[in-house]
C-alpha cells in the first residue's frame, strides 16, 4: 500500500481582487522507504503541494477538492485530531529557509522540546531532554548542550538548518518532506546537508519527498521523479529514465538547461515565464512556451497517459491511441 497518495488535488489562493489557481489536479504517491523527487521552476506550486499535504496553507489558501490519503485515510476528510497526530508522529517537514523557520526569541531547547512534547507523549521532561540531545547529535552538531541553550541568531545558517532537520526528524515517523533544504545555504555546506538528509532517511527507514532546483542532487538521491509545471504534474518516471530520456518538452528543456561546469556557455534558460495563475492559459498550461505546441495544445488540456509500465506523461504528443490514466501509473 502507498504511504501517501495525493489524488486530483486542486488548490487556489484568494486575494482581495483575484483568485490564483495554483494547484491544478495533482496526483502523486509515495511508497514506504521511497525517495521521490519533485522538480520544476520556482512558482510551480511545489511548496504549496507540500503545505497542502499537511494542511498548513496560509489563510488565503484553499484546498478546493481532491484527496490526500495517508495510509489509506483521507486527511482532508479526517477529523482534526487525526491530522494533528499525523503532523506530530507521521510527517516531518524541513523548511526552505532556516533563518525564518525558527522563532527568533526562543532558545533552540524550548522550540525543540515543544515539538517533542507532542510527538512523544508520555515522556518525562528529562527523557525529552535526552531525546533532544540525541536528535541534535544525530544531525552532526557538536556540543548538543550548548546548541540547545543557544538562540537561533547565535548559530550559523548551516547549523540552523541542521536544527530544523532535527526538528523535522522529531515528528517524521514515516515521511520527510524536504522543501529545497539547501537553497538558502552556502554552496560549501549544501552538499554536507544533503548527504546528512540522505543518510538519516535511509537509517531511519523513512520515505521522502525532496523538492529541489538542483537536478544533480535529485538525480543522485531519489528513486522516482515528478516534474511539475504551473500546478500540474507533467511527467513521472523512475529517476534514471527521466534524466536519460525525458519525454515531456518541459522536462527536456529543464534538463538541457542545467548549467554545466564543463560547458563554457551559459544555458539559455527556458524562454518565457511561468503563467499568470489568475488567468492560466487554456489547454496545456505549458503551450505558450512549448516549442512543439500545435493547435490542440491551446484548446484541450492533455490528460495523463501511461507510456510504459512505469512512466506517465501529460502531453498531446504521446496521447495518441493511449488511454487516460487516473491517478498513478503504478497504482493498483
Amino acid at each position, binding site marked *: 500500500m502507498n504511504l501517501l497518495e495525493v489524488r486530483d488535488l486542486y488548490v487556489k489562493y484568494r486575494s482581495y481582487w483575484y483568485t490564483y489557481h495554483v494547484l491544478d489536479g495533482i496526483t502523486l504517491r509515495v511508497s514506504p522507504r521511497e525517495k521521490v523527487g519533485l522538480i520544476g521552476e520556482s512558482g510551480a506550486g511545489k511548496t504549496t503541494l507540500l*503545505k497542502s499535504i*499537511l494542511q*498548513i496553507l*496560509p*489563510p488565503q489558501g484553499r484546498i478546493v477538492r481532491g484527496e490526500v490519503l495517508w495510509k489509506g485515510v483521507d486527511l482532508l476528510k479526517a477529523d482534526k485530531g487525526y*491530522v*494533528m*497526530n*499525523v*503532523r*506530530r*508522529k507521521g*510527517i*516531518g*517537514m524541513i*523548511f*526552505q*529557509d532556516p533563518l*525564518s*523557520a*525558527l*522563532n*527568533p*526569541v*526562543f*532558545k533552540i531547547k524550548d*522550540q525543540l522540546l*515543544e*515539538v517533542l512534547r*507532542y*510527538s512523544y507523549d508520555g515522556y518525562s521532561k528529562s527523557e525529552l531532554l535526552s531525546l533532544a540531545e540525541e536528535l541534535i547529535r544525530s544531525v552532526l552538531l557538536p556540543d548538543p548542550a550548548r546548541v540547545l541553550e543557544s*538562540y537561533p*541568531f*547565535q548559530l550559523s545558517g548551516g547549523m540552523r538548518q541542521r536544527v*530544523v532537520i532535527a*526538528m523535522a526528524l*522529531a*515528528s517524521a515517523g514515516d515521511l520527510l518532506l524536504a522543501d529545497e533544504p539547501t537553497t538558502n545555504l552556502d554552496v560549501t555546506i549544501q552538499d554536507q546537508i544533503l548527504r546528512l538528509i540522505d543518510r538519516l532517511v535511509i537509517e531511519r527507514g523513512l520515505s521522502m519527498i525532496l523538492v529541489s532546483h538542483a537536478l544533480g542532487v535529485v538525480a543522485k538521491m531519489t528513486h522516482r521523479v515528478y516534474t511539475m509545471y504551473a500546478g500540474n504534474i507533467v511527467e513521472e518516471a523512475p529517476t534514471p529514465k527521466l534524466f536519460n530520456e525525458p519525454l515531456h518538452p518541459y522536462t527536456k528543456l529543464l534538463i538541457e538547461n542545467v548549467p554545466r561546469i564543463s560547458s563554457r556557455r551559459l544555458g539559455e534558460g527556458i524562454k518565457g515565464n511561468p503563467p499568470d495563475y489568475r488567468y492560466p492559459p487554456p489547454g496545456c498550461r505549458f503551450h505558450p512556451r512549448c516549442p512543439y505546441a500545435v493547435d490542440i495544445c491551446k484548446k484541450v488540456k492533455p490528460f495523463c497517459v501511461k507510456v510504459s509500465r512505469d512512466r506517465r506523461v501529460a502531453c498531446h504528443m504521446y496521447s495518441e491511441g493511449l488511454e487516460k490514466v487516473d491517478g498513478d501509473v503504478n497504482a493498483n
Partner: protein
Amino acid sequence: MLIFALARVLPGDPIRAAFGPDVPEEVVKRYREMLNLDKPLYLQYFYWLRDVFQFRLGRSLITVRDVSADIAEFFPATLELLLASAVFRIIVAFPLGVLSGRKPGAIMDNIIRVLAYIGICIPTFGWAIILQLIFAYWLGWLPAIGRISEEFTGHVPRITGLMTIDSLVSGNVPAFIDALKHLLIPTVALSIGGAVQEARILRASIVENIGRDYVLNMKSHGIPEKIIYFKYVLRPSLTAVVPVMGLDIASAIGNAFLVESICNWPGMSRYGMIAMLRKDLNAIVGVVLITGIAYIAVNTITDIVLYVIDPRVRLRGREE
C-alpha cells in the same frame, strides 16, 4: 542648559509678572539680587548648577518657596497619573491587540478597528471633557475633578504621595476607593488614544509574525494553535509595541498638563504650565529638568523590558 538659557531669554520681567505693576522699584531690585538676576548669564547658570547638586532648584516666585519643595508636592500626583496610565495601556492595548490579531478581518477585528479610530481622533482634552460629561455629570458615577473627596482630605497620611497607594497602605479602604474613582477619568482621558494605537501596532505585528515560516514550522509539527499563538507569536510581536508604549508614556508626561488642568489634578504638569505663563524662571527650569529625568527613567524601563523579552537585544553586545 538650553532650557536654562531659553527661560532666561523669554520676554518679560519675571519679578513684575509675579508681583504686578504696582510694586516699588526697590522691592523688584532686592528680588533681582536675591535670585542673582542682576548677574551675567554664565554666572547665573553657575549658581544654579551649584544649587542643583545640593538638590535645590531655586526659589519659585509664585509659591515663594524652593522649587524642589513644590515639585516634591506636585510630582507624586503626576507620577500616580502616569503609573495608572501605564497600567491602563497595558490592560487595554494587549487584550485588544491580541483579540484582533487572532482573526484578522473578523467581526471582532473590525469593531476594534473602529474603536481605535475613534480613540485616536479625539484628543486628550476632548476625552477628558467627554468623560467628565458622561460619567460625572450625566451618570454621576465618578467625581469630575480633584484627587480625593473632601471628607477624606487630611485623613490619608502622606507616605509616597500617591493617594491610592497611601490610602491602601494606611488601610483606609473607603479612601482608596474614593481616590481610585478620582483617578479614573484623568487616566482614561490621558491614555485611551495611545492605548488603542498600541493595540493596532500589536495587531499589525502579530499578523506579520503569523505569516512567518516559524509559525508554519510549528504548525507542521502538530503543536496546538493556541500554544503557538499565545506563546510563540505573542512574544516576538511584543518587541514592536513595547518601545512605542514607552515613548507614548514618556510623552504623556508632557501631555498631562491638559488633563491635569481640566480635571483640576494638582500635578506637576499643571504647576509647570502655570510657571510658564507667569514666567517663574526657576520653576520652569525645575519642571523641565524633572520631566527630562522622568523621560530617561521611562526609557530605561522600556529598555529593561525589551531586554527581558528579546534575547537579540540581550546578547547582541556579547556576540560581537
